[in-house]
C-alpha cells in the first residue's frame, strides 16, 4: 500500500499536495484498492467554491459509489479532464496521472486536520 512521504492525507482516504496556495487532490492507493476498478468520477466544476470536509463529487467503481470530499476551503481552479475518458487512471496512478482536482486555498486559511503519512498509514492498518 503506497503512502508517498511528500503528501498529506485525510480520513476519507484522499491525498493533498500543497504548493504555494494551490492544493492538488486525489484518492489514495488504499482507496482505489477498496473501490476496485473506477468507472466514473464526478468532479466539482472549475470556479465552484468548496468547503473542507464537505462532499463535492463522487467516485464510482464497478460495485460501489463513494463521495469525494474537499480537504480544504477554497475555489476549484482545475480538474483532470483526462478522467472523463479514462477513469482507470485513478487505479493506475492514484498519485500521478489520476489526480482529480486543484483548489486555490482561500486567503487567510490553512489546511488543517490533514494527516501525516505515518498517521495515514496507521489509519489504513487499523481499518483492516
Amino acid at each position, binding site marked *: 500500500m503506497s503512502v508517498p512521504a511528500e503528501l498529506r492525507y485525510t480520513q476519507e482516504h484522499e491525498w493533498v499536495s500543497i504548493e504555494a496556495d494551490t492544493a492538488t487532490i486525489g484518492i489514495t492507493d488504499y482507496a482505489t*484498492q477498496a473501490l*476496485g*476498478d473506477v*468507472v*466514473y468520477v*464526478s468532479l466539482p466544476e472549475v470556479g465552484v467554491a468548496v468547503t473542507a470536509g464537505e462532499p463535492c463529487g*463522487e467516485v*464510482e467503481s*464497478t*460495485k460501489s*459509489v463513494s463521495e469525494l470530499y474537499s480537504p480544504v476551503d477554497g475555489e476549484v481552479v482545475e480538474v483532470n479532464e483526462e478522467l472523463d475518458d479514462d*477513469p482507470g487512471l485513478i*487505479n493506475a496512478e492514484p498519485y500521478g496521472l489520476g489526480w482529480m482536482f486543484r483548489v486555490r486555498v482561500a486567503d487567510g486559511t490553512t489546511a488543517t486536520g490533514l494527516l501525516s503519512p505515518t498517521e495515514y498509514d496507521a489509519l489504513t492498518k487499523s481499518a483492516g
Partner: protein
Amino acid sequence: MTSTVRDTPLRTVHERLGATMTEFAGWLMPLRYGSETAEHNAVRTNAALFDLSHMGEIAVTGPGAGAALDYALCGWPSRLAVGRARYTMLCAPDGGILDDLIVYRQADERFLVVANAANTSVVLAELTERCSGGAVIADESAVTGLVSIQGPNGCGFLSTVTDLPVDSMQYYAGAYGTVAGRPAWVARTGYTGEDGFEIFCAPADCEPIWDALTATGGAGGLPAAGLAARDTLRLEAGMPLYGNELGPDVTPYEAGLGRVVRLDKPGDFVGREALAARAAEGPRATLIGLLGNSRRVPRHGYAVLSAAGDRVGAVTSGAPSPTLGRPIAMAYVEGEAGGPFGIDIRGKTEPAEVTGLPFYDRRK
C-alpha cells in the same frame, strides 16, 4: 443460529493470490484478486477459475426420486436422462420463487440439486418436506467442493488434466470421472455465458484440482476470478440473480422464464394452481434490459421513469459492462415495456435504452 463466517476449502489459495475477501451468504469468498475487469475479460477471451464451494449440493435419491422432484419443483426432472442437467426453480404454493437451481441426474436413482448458498437451508427444508416418503434427501454441501473453469479455452485446458472426453460433452451434461487424478462429477454448466465446466469434488481435493488447472495456463498460470467478475459476467449473459431478479414476490413468468414451469407434466406440483393462473393472466411485470448512455451506473433499487417522469419500475441489477463498454441493467417495469425510460441515479435522471436480453451472446 451461528454467526461465524465459513471458509471454503480454497481459503489459503485465495490469500496466497492476494484476493480481496468478502462475506457472502455466510461464507468468506474472494471478491476480486486484482482488477475485476481483467478477470471478467479473461473469462470472455481465455479462461479463468472460480471457487464456488459456497454453493449448496443436495442429493435426492431412491427409486421415487424423479417423481418426488417432479412434485417439489416446477420442472420435470424425472424426464432427464442420466448425465443430463436442467435449470429449474423451487416455487412456493403462491408461485413465488424460493430459489433457482440446477438439477443434475447423476444416476437412475440419484439427482444432485445445486442451490444458491443463501438459500441452501430453505431448499433443504422444502425438499425434505415435499419429497417426504418419496425420496431420501441428503445435504452434501459440507462434503462437496466446487471449482469452475469458464471461458472459451477452458475445455482445452481441462482436457489435459481429466480422463473425461470433455470436448465432446454436451452443454448441460455431466459425468463422473477424475480431474488431476481426483474423483469428480464434471458438468458442462456455468453462470458466465461462456463455455465452461463445473467440477464437484471432495473438499480436500479442491486445492490439488485448482493447482492442476492453474498450471494448464502455461507460464503465468490461469487467472482466478472472484464474485465481482461472476456478477458482471452473468449480468451480460442476461442471467438472473436470486435476491435481485428472482425472489418470493415474483413468479418465473415475470422473470421471462416461464419455460421452466412445466404445466404439461402429469400430476400435481407445488405452486401449480397459482402458476397456471399467472400463465393464463399474463405476468404482472416485465423484466427488461437497459443500456446506459453515460458512465453512471444504474444500480439495484434505482427508480425507472417513463418519458413523462412517472415511476414505472425499478432496477434489479446494474453494472458497467466490460464487453459492451457501457453500463447495463435489468429492471422490472409495469405495463408497456418499450420505453424510452429514464433512471433516477442518485437524484439525476439518466436516459437509458431498452434492449433485449441477453446483452451478450457468445454464439453471435
